[in-house]
């Protein structure tokens, strides 16, 4: 197990959002987390990165990381594509990407990786010197994924990468995510509203309702589950 979560609680001030969730993620797998708005999906990702107050146990690559500072967890190889994309709006596209590799010391490999993400997203290369805040929503989403990849993460946390993207762009993005997972062995935890596409991409799935895991299993089985089909897949 690359990631093991036991009894994870999280709260914003007095408001408790997660009520003890358990889940795990196998090395090299793509796991998706489904649920309605407000179920606690974004909070789960934020909790894994130490961005909210938590209780419970989080192990990454065997090490306890709960209660540690965000920047320390990132340095272990956890990259987060946050809700809202987290663009450094006043910096250029390329500066955004360089920041993704901020903690890395292998300069030559960083330059290679820069070309590699430009290979995945040629649009970013065209706009490398443009102020990132002026990119379109789709381009900023590509930038957020690329910035996360620049860390060379072991685990990629993706918070609704399809949000605000045209359907064709979503397909393109998901194809690239699959390539990255297969070629580079990056494990992924994917939170998505677009349940159909998420279940297509992922091998494992968890369903969260009001801060609790209510269903888990292989993505293919979850897809066939009647209640999931009606509530999240819409047929």
């Amino acid at each position, binding site marked *: 197990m690359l990631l093991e979560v036991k009894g994870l609680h999280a709260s914003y001030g007095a408001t408790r959002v997660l009520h003890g969730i358990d889940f795990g993620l196998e090395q090299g797998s793509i796991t998706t987390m489904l649920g309605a708005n407000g179920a606690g999906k974004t909070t789960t990702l934020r909790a894994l990165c130490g961005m909210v107050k938590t209780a419970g146990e989080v192990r990454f690559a065997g090490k306890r990381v709960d209660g540690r500072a*965000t*920047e320390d967890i990132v340095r272990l190889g956890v990259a987060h594509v*946050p809700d809202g994309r987290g663009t*450094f709006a006043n*910096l250029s596209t390329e500066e955004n990407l360089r*920041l*993704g590799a*901020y903690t890395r010391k292998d300069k030559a490999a960083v330059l290679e990786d820069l070309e590699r993400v430009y290979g995945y997203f040629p649009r970013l290369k065209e706009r490398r010197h443009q102020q990132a805040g002026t990119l379109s929503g789709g381009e900023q989403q590509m930038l957020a994924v690329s910035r996360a990849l620049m860390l060379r993460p072991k685990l990629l946390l993706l918070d609704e990468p399809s949000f605000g993207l045209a359907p064709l762009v979503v397909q393109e993005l998901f194809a690239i995510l699959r390539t990255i997972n297969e070629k580079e062995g990056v494990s992924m935890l994917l939170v998505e509203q677009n349940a159909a596409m998420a279940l297509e991409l992922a091998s494992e799935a968890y369903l969260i309702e009001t801060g609790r895991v209510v269903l888990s299993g292989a993505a293919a089985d979850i897809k066939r589950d009647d209640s999931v089909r009606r509530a999240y897949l819409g047929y």
Partner: protein
Amino acid sequence: MNLDALLLQVIAGLATGGIYASLALALVMIYQATHLVNFAQGEMAMFATYIAWALINAGMGYWPAFLLTVGIAFVLGVLIERIIIRPVENAPVLAVVVVFIGLLVILNSLAGWIFTYTIKSFPSPFPTEPLFGIRAMSPHRLGAIGVTLVVLALLYAFFRFTPLGLAMRAAAQNPESSRLVGIRVGWMLALGWGLAAAIGAVAGMMVAPIVYLDPNMMGGVLLYAFAAALVGGIDSPGGAVLGGLLVGVLENVLGAFVIGNELKLVVALVLIVGVLLVKPSGLFGRVHVSRV
């Protein structure tokens, strides 16, 4: 008024403006990182200048003392952030302003206590003979402009071309995303304070030969520096330097020909109020728009 006299005042103004520019630059540094104006900036510069004075009096050469002082000021700036500013990080703006003013008073009294309130002369590293026999072109004042421009160039290179400079810019504008790429945001703020203190120390050492060294020497200078930073745009380093030169020239020209030397400080106050009323973002500042 003849043209020669005007030209002289402009040159003299550019020279004092160089000093306002460096202190304005220090204000901008902290403003960019924290969105607060550090009222203690002048006293931090004054205190650093006393350190330089003590080093020179202990027999150290001017430039070694200069560099060592810049280093010490940097460390003190970092310590002030860590020990005094960090605990009020999330406090309301007014509380932080009161902390700044407290810091101002403490540094002022501390300097008086350690070094006494007796006015001291402070050496200039530049020759004392006026250039070309023109009194306004004192080598010290021209040197001060040169030093300011060097500081500005170094800062520009640091923020533009080094990973650490990039990380500091990132931390100032988007702390949450910065943490997500592994930047230690708290340390970036402390570093910003260190840099501001170091720049302030340079300004202090440049102004001390002109106004003489005493614990209250930066009071007026800080007001001009505020005016300079506001004219240039409080979040624009280049604007601060240009604003500094502009304020210096205005102050000298108006002081000499229009309102008289006694009322010079009024120029700074009028500029501060005027800019805030007419164009709060200054000449080069970013206009902040927020949805409500």
